[in-house]
């Protein structure tokens, strides 16, 4: 089943194209990692997939219609986005934040009902955030806050989950926590996941498919074993690397050559 089809997608803020001639299909149940150096257009791609930006060329189709022309409410029922961090003001509790995920399913003047509370209860159990429910979001640690934001996204009951560097500010334990959570949602619930990340090795371990961006075009797209080669990484990131295999999974592991030694 195709969730999204990206046809000849091109976008620019000013003169140079940020993204150019992107073509790919997001299949239901995939766990895709989008990799690429700073400024390669990863975050812009997420905004285009969510329809917040309007492409100058081509389109991203969600169930056959260009996502940027759809009503925001319609998009929000199918696609949820987990931002890099939380930037809100005023002290909302974790529970209030997760309840906001029900918003695209509610009408004006209406309040959450039993069903909405049940959904929120379920996603907070899944993300292990029930114990945080009453605490203000700004008092949580980075990893806790990220789990709450994932819970909010899950409360939208989306088909597709987009994440913008979900582990950027986390230590290794919390990185693994978050990615294992996403992996289990992907495996057990069939949730389709597209995550932008800087962490090549985590992407290699957890994703079934890697899209490698280089200055706005797709350099390579495929399973981690095929994409994460020394040749590809050196071409895109411009730094010499060594590759080996992860002892347990056999997935590629990439390390800098560190030629200073």
């Amino acid at each position: 089943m195709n969730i999204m089809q990206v046809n000849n997608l091109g976008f620019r803020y000013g003169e140079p194209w940020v993204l150019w001639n992107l073509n790919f299909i997001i299949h239901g149940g995939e766990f895709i990692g989008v990799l690429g150096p700073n400024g390669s257009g990863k975050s812009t791609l997420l905004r285009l997939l969510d329809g917040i930006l309007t492409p100058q060329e081509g389109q991203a189709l969600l169930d056959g219609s260009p996502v940027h022309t759809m009503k925001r409410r319609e998009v929000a029922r199918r696609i949820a986005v987990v931002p890099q961090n939380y930037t809100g003001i005023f002290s909302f509790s974790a529970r209030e934040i997760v309840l906001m995920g029900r918003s695209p399913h509610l009408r004006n003047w209406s309040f959450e009902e039993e069903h909405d509370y049940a959904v929120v209860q379920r996603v907070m159990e899944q993300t292990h955030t029930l114990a945080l429910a009453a605490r203000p979001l700004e008092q949580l640690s980075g990893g806790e806050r990220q789990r709450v934001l994932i819970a909010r996204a899950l409360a939208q009951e989306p088909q597709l989950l987009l994440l913008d560097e979900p582990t950027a500010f986390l230590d290794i334990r919390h990185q693994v926590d978050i990615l294992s959570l996403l992996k289990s949602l992907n495996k057990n619930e069939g949730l389709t996941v597209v995550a932008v990340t800087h962490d090549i090795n985590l992407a290699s371990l957890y994703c079934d498919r890697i899209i490698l961006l280089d200055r706005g075009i797709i350099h390579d797209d495929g399973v981690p074993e095929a994409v994460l080669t020394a040749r590809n990484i050196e071409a895109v990131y411009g730094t010499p690397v060594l590759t080996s295999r992860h002892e347990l999974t056999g997935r590629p592991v990439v390390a800098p050559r560190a030629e200073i030694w």
Partner: protein
Amino acid sequence: MGAFLFQPSSLTVTPSRVVKLSLLLCLLLFTVAFVSLFTGTADISVRATLREFFPWASFLSGTLTEAETSIIMSVRLPRILLAALVGASLSVAGVVFQALLRNPLADPYILGISAGSAVGAVLGILFGTAGTWGLGMPGMAFLGALTAILIVFGIAGRTKHKENNTLLLTGVMVNAFFNAFILFVFTISDHAQLQRALNWIMGDLSLADEQALFYTSVFLLLGTVFIYTYARSLNLLVTGEETAQQLGVSVGKTKIGLLTAAALITAAAVAASGTIGFVGLIIPHIIRLLVGPDHRILLPAAFFLGGTFLIGADTLARSLVAPAELPVGVITALCGAPYFLLLLRRSLRSSP
């Protein structure tokens, strides 16, 4: 075990909680209004007045003189009603501006939007629609409010919430310019009106007439109902504009609608009473401390407490130096400015 956490508990915003809190604050409003009605230089009997209102209540005794009836019905009551309407308006507008600018220090007065309305209203008076509520004065006040909003949002609307300076400086300059403009216009037009202009710049509720009451109540009610329709969108907007879009809000349309509604109720309040500051800053902040930041409960609570606060402030304004009167804006500024500085200090401390 966790299941009970998500029963709509006292911590969750439910319709019944919104209604209960609104009724409670409504009761408070009526209590303060009642006290205010019998506060003043003329000592009027409560019993006799109640008898006047409820002639069937035979246990009440006494009658009002004609002068007393006139003081109650034509002076104090309209003034109390106008105070309630204006206080509710400024407070609701403050909630909207704070959410849309994602800044707890925003308020129609501080941002210069009240001053913009005042300039519009003054121009309306000058160009022949003086004192009448035709469309001239409130319409011009509305245009003035929109102009100020365009300036403030054009310059400061894009800053991040931690960067208060741009917003506050823009507001200070808009205020300085518009207030100078008002004084200039009043000075060259008629010296006798200068005192009135000064009163008006600091807020004056003694201008309450039937038309002022009618228009402020219409704009306030329509505006508040419209804004309440977007109460949940306001919750999403304070967590970030992009987040709001991701959660299904059409941010552009919603912002324009909300700003227009807030401009309208600010303009009506200013046209009726001049520029009264800080109500829209203090009240939303106090309510957030009491019931949390959810706009579905914040808006109605701010509505009622804003009205109550301004009735109280006006009662002080007309009784502190009786028989003389202070402009009510003097009282709200005496409470509000220190409060503002306190909030500013806290926000500067918490920024990185």
